[in-house]
């Protein structure tokens, strides 16, 4: 193995990150040089952390050079660990305490209107990602990470899952394509991830293998929380196999990736979306049949909020429940336009009100006028009400002055 490694990022535009050069030596102990933007305030603590990480991996002789642009501890530790692991073979990990609020579970049917993609190896962007109110946050290991950076990205994502508060957003990771993605699981599964996105999914067989690996790691590491799967269909074959994929264990939603899908078909992706009409309706139909959510592709023009609104309304009309975002500004538009419209809210209010009246009277059957209301319809109405409250279209105590 080489005696010298480098990790991390430096240079123009980089902040909240660090760059590390590590060289193993024979003798002379640990020589640590830190050049930090926050030297006066954190220089001492950064050196102490470096010593702690090196000590954890029993490195006694090395030159470590670290250039810091205001990285938090979990970032510094990830970079140093990645540098070490390029030089020595070890099963050890340097784990900082996991935040208590990062250990929450999520439900199969939770709302997944928006999911914000973050490049997994760019720690700055993750710091504030939770404040924008997205339903889910995706730490991406796939397309946004350069092949040479996959290894350090996996360690960064692991530390981010443990240390960064996303303020209640569902904690998601997009792993690499099958089968490379199987190797990512070791870094992700034990660290309180809620949902895994499986890119370019083409068969139930792939998900089967992923589930086996998740179970194996969960058993070994005592993972208790459920880990949901959201396969992304990005090829003609994937779209045709949608039903077997949707019916696989732990799958809670099907997503579509239109960039790759249109490339696979050899057609242009257009604003009108005619070329993907079949795939999208197929996906929405299959998801409903399998009792899971249908999630639309990302919309990539971050400056065009008017077109985004149009796309969301159309997506909702086709039966999708949410879509991806690549910029926080998109979240609000997505939430507002997947939200129920006024007539949907009125209908839902009638049904939910009837449900409450039935419960109060101890009746097992909900009825509206002469019509019986099935439980799934009630459930859907309740979701509609929740969504309306969430975007401010309805007051949370609307029943106080509701006249049916």
């Amino acid at each position, binding site marked *: 193995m080489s005696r010298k490694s480098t990790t991390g990022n430096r240079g123009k535009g980089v902040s909240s990150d660090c760059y590390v050069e590590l060289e193993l030596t024979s003798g002379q102990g640990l020589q640590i040089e830190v050049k930090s933007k926050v030297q*006066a305030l954190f220089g001492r603590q950064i050196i102490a952390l470096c010593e702690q990480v090196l000590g954890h991996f029993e490195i006694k002789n090395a030159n470590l050079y670290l250039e810091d642009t*205001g990285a938090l501890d979990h970032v510094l530790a990830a970079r140093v660990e990645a540098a070490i692991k390029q030089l020595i073979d070890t099963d050890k990990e340097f784990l900082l305490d996991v935040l208590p609020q990062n250990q929450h579970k999520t439900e199969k049917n939770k709302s997944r209107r928006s999911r914000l993609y973050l490049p997994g190896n760019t720690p700055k962007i993750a710091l504030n990602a939770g404040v924008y109110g997205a339903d889910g946050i995706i730490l991406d290991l796939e397309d946004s990470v350069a092949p040479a950076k996959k290894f350090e990205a996996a360690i960064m994502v692991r530390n981010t899952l443990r240390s960064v508060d996303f303020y209640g957003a569902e904690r998601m990771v997009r792993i690499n394509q099958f089968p490379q993605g199987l190797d990512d699981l070791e870094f992700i599964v034990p660290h309180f991830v809620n949902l895994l996105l499986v890119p370019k999914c083409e068969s139930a067989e792939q998900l089967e293998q992923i589930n086996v690996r998740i179970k194996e790691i969960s058993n070994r590491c005592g993972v208790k929380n459920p880990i949901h799967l959201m396969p992304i269909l990005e090829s003609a074959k994937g779209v045709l196999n949608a039903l077997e994929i949707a019916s696989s264990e732990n799958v809670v939603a099907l997503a579509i990736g239109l960039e790759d899908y249109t490339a696979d078909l050899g057609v242009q992706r257009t604003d009108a979306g005619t070329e993907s009409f079949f795939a999208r309706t197929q996906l929405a139909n299959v998801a409903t049949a399998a009792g899971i959510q249908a999630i639309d592709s990302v919309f990539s023009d971050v400056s065009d909020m008017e077109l985004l609104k149009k796309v969301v309304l159309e997506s909702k009309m086709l039966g999708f429940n949410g879509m991806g975002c690549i910029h926080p500004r998109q979240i609000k538009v997505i939430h507002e336009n997947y939200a129920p419209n006024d007539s949907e809210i009125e209908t839902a209010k009638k049904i939910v009100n009837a449900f409450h009246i039935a419960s109060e009277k101890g009746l097992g059957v909900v009825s509206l006028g002469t019509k019986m209301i099935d439980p799934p319809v009630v459930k859907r109405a309740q979701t509609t009400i929740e969504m309306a409250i969430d975007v401010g279209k309805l007051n949370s105590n609307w029943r106080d002055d509701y006249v049916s």
Partner: protein
Amino acid sequence: MSVEMVKNAVGRLVPTEINGKPAVPFKGVGKYKPEARKHAAKIAFCADFPIDGNKQVETLQEALIKAGLRDGMTISSHHHFRNGDLIAVQIFKIAQELGVKNLVWFPSAAFPCQEAIIEQLENGTIHHIEGSLNGPLGEFASQGKMSGTGVLRSHGGRYQAVQDGEVEIDIAVIAAPTADPFGNANGVNGPSACGLLGFALADSEYADKVIVVTDNLVPFPCLPWQIQGNNVDYVVEVEQVGIPERIVSGTTKITKSPDRLHIAEMTAQFCEEAGLIKDGFSFQAGAGGTSLSIGNFFGDIMRRKGIKARFARGGSNKYLVEMLEEGLIDYILDGQTFDMDGIRSMRENPNHVNTSPFTSYNYHGKGNFAGLIDIVILGATEVDVNFNANVVTHSDGKLLHGIGGWQNCLFGKNVILPVPLFRNRIPVICDEVTTICGPGELIDIIVTERGIAINPRRTDLIEQMKDSNLPIKTIVELKEEAERICGTPDKPKFSEEIISAVKWVDGTVIDVVKKIAGVAK
């Protein structure tokens, strides 16, 4: 040299003497009222000036010599060209060539384009600077390299110091985009138009000698005449006085940062929910990407509600001008123009009005309009749990910014500081700010991306916002959250040497900036 240090009303130890002159410690807001008459320029005699009104001399050097430039004088300049000023650097180069020493430079603000002045600071031509120290000059002063002690004042504080004689300007050099040979001058016309010359107004009225430098000499009368020739001694024509394009700095564009946009949107939402945005209200929108976006969001709210603002306080820029032209604002009361649209609007639109620190901020006026502004948006490098805020130093102790109109605007009705909870791992909300520039009693609301803290003194706002969906938290909760994320920083180490005093709007000393320890002088 040992100067007695005393504890002032915000608990900071400050010297009783600065640069050999007595200094008064801060006594509390509105408490310092010494009895005296205003300072005034020497009595002039029109008989001493050419009867034909032509005060033109050949060069700036000749004007400075005629004005009696000599050791120890105080020389003033204005910053309406911001980073495009071409004159200040020339003044001190000339002084150096003439072998003059120990000058005091009294700019209304300094900019990175004046970095070359470090040469005259190093060779003794300039003893010290009294005015905002930012960028390279701040860095230079932070290292304790300036011979004298810097004195930082607000725009209003500068007017106060001139009016009560705390600073006696010997020679004022006023770079003017248009002037006539009599010395009348304005900022709106000419190839180097910079908008207005309000910051130079006190200098023109109170300095012993006044030199107007222009690259657009017009026959008498130069109108409008914000600077009046009756106060001017000499007029110099030069090739170029300033580069207007450099008035626009990076901080005067609307932000694209999602974090800052988020804070801006939260701020606007807060103002709306708190009932502050109503027909006939007024607001101040400063430079800086976040402030500009807040102004934009205010515009959206006004359009939606179908209401107008009575006036907006500038620094003006494209965005504010568009709101004026759209009819969302009746008037812009402008202290400085931040871009070319601001300059054009001031020239063409009678409702875009130039002001000076006298009308807007002056402590020695019979009132000023800062207190009439409903919503004031300001920045800060740090805010502490008592709402005291810092704008001049960074948390590592480096002196990097001027005060500008910041202290003066604190007298607005609702003062809001939209700031990130932390920058580059450094908490912005902390136990104690490095330098107190404004007392917490004047600061009402802190908006961060993770929560909004309302000053406990503002029980009205706390009551109004109690059912809001916005994340209202206490300032201590915000501070704890910042430390949970960043860790608790070590304290920077300072030497005992004072590199700059920070004045309050009344001329008292609210705090000092000390040299960072371990930096050789």
